[in-house]
């Protein structure tokens, strides 16, 4: 058993060197697939990161009744923080409200009307999962129902428009990503199938000599895994070059810090191996029925 397994493992490595050109073609196909797929994933992840940063500015402004004491206002502020979907908040006391007034209108309210009638309130940031017009409406309505709240509002038009754009972009990326993945599987398995087709004569001979299907299949599967590993290594080298180039061109021009997703290296290796394995399994199965 051990000698058979050793033979098959050595055989699979030898087969890779014997058929160098088909192995290179197959590995390059896997590498191209991974580069395209990784680029799409890189674009998607960065876009999600960018939209999260942008939508982090979405907030709900709340104004309390003007007759509320500061301690009741703080209590109300804390109650609002407990609402599901509220990430954090900033309490606006009378002083802070006056300074905001001065910031917008360039004048001190006390100078205009003699005292400070501005109500206390708060600005509340929304958690990522609740940054949609529907969810923000829901939270706003819940806040408005609370005793002591005079008004709660958010910039509905802006949020709606941005949400619509983000939805479209993410949906498009998802469709493109799935299409790329499906095309990749077909492309890689057809390339490997063509390579296996050229070995049909050897497969028939092995059958006639009494080889079982698993004996014939094993080296091809291992070969597929090696091709996947070589392909993913090639893809990672190319992607690192591409990343350096984009960092030099894009980041210096538009000043956006692009990030490499954590799973990029492991993902490339895993997807590369799976593509090689699936391709060779599909390819060889046709000749082992």
């Amino acid at each position: 058993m051990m000698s058979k397994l050793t033979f098959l493992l050595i055989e699979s490595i030898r087969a890779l060197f014997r058929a160098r050109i088909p192995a290179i073609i197959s590995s390059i196909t896997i590498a191209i697939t991974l580069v395209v797929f990784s680029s799409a994933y890189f674009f998607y992840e960065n876009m999600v990161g960018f939209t999260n940063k942008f939508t982090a500015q979405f907030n709900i402004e709340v104004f309390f009744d003007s007759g509320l004491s500061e301690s009741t206002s703080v209590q109300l502020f804390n109650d609002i923080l407990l609402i599901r979907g509220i990430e954090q908040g900033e309490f606006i006391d009378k002083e802070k409200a006056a300074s905001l007034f001065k910031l917008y209108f360039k004048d001190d309210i006390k100078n205009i009307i003699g005292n400070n009638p501005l109500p206390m309130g708060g600005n509340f940031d929304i958690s990522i999962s609740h940054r949609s017009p529907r969810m923000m409406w829901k939270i706003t309505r819940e806040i408005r129902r609370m005793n002591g709240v005079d008004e709660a509002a958010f910039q509905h038009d802006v949020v709606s428009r941005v949400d619509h754009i983000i939805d479209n972009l993410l949906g498009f990326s998802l469709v493109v990503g799935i299409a790329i993945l499906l095309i990749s599987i077909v492309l890689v398995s057809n390339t490997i199938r063509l390579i296996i087709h050229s070995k049909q004569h050897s497969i028939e001979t092995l059958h006639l000599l009494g080889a079982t299907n698993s004996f014939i299949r094993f080296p091809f599967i291992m070969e597929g895994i090696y091709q996947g590993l070589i392909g993913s290594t090639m893809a990672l080298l190319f992607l690192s070059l591409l990343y350096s180039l984009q960092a030099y061109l894009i980041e210096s021009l538009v000043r956006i810090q692009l990030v490499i997703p954590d799973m990029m290296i492991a993902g490339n290796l895993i997807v590369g191996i799976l593509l090689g394995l699936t391709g060779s399994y599909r390819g060889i199965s046709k000749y082992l029925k």
Partner: protein
Amino acid sequence: MIQFENVTATYADDVGIFDLSFHIEKGEMVFLMGPTGAGKSTVLRTIYKDILLNDGSLYIDGQDITDMRSRKIPYYRRKIGMIFQDFRLIEDRTVFENVALPLNILGLPNKEIKSKVSEILEKVGLDSVTKMRPSQLSGGEQQRVSIARALVKDPVVILADEPTGNLDPNVSDEILDLLELATNNGTSVLMSTHNFPLIRPRKKRYIELSDGRLVQK
């Protein structure tokens, strides 16, 4: 060793072999004669279970293989040596690797494989070309590699399908000598050919087929 009892095996277009009965003893060398399309290859294919029987019974080495399950066929084929007109050698492997292949399939240890392969290659006179590829050899040498590959696993039966079809008369005689030598170890040999002048001097039994039916045995 080989026993056909009223065997019928046909292809989709209703050609094949019909109601064949004959037997071959242990260590016997028998020729399967007949023109192209007579059913010689079909007889061999039924023995190595490449086609199924429509009717009748087939026994090899005392084992009833008539309705053998497909998953058992690879293990059964390991008892049979096969030689083909087109040699069926694997091009990207050396002579040594081609001959060693049946032993690798059997899972023998490397040391035993080396000794058996070296011994058989010496016997067929190919010990000087072990590292060459089949394409670097002449037709006769390639067929000798194919014979070495069939003999190396000590088969109970050798099936040779027109093994001299592509070879000149002198080389063909050498191939027949090698096959005859195999019978000394008790291996039965069934060889198909349509070259009667080649086998006549051997004074061996022959089975003659025509249109898939037995003419003479």
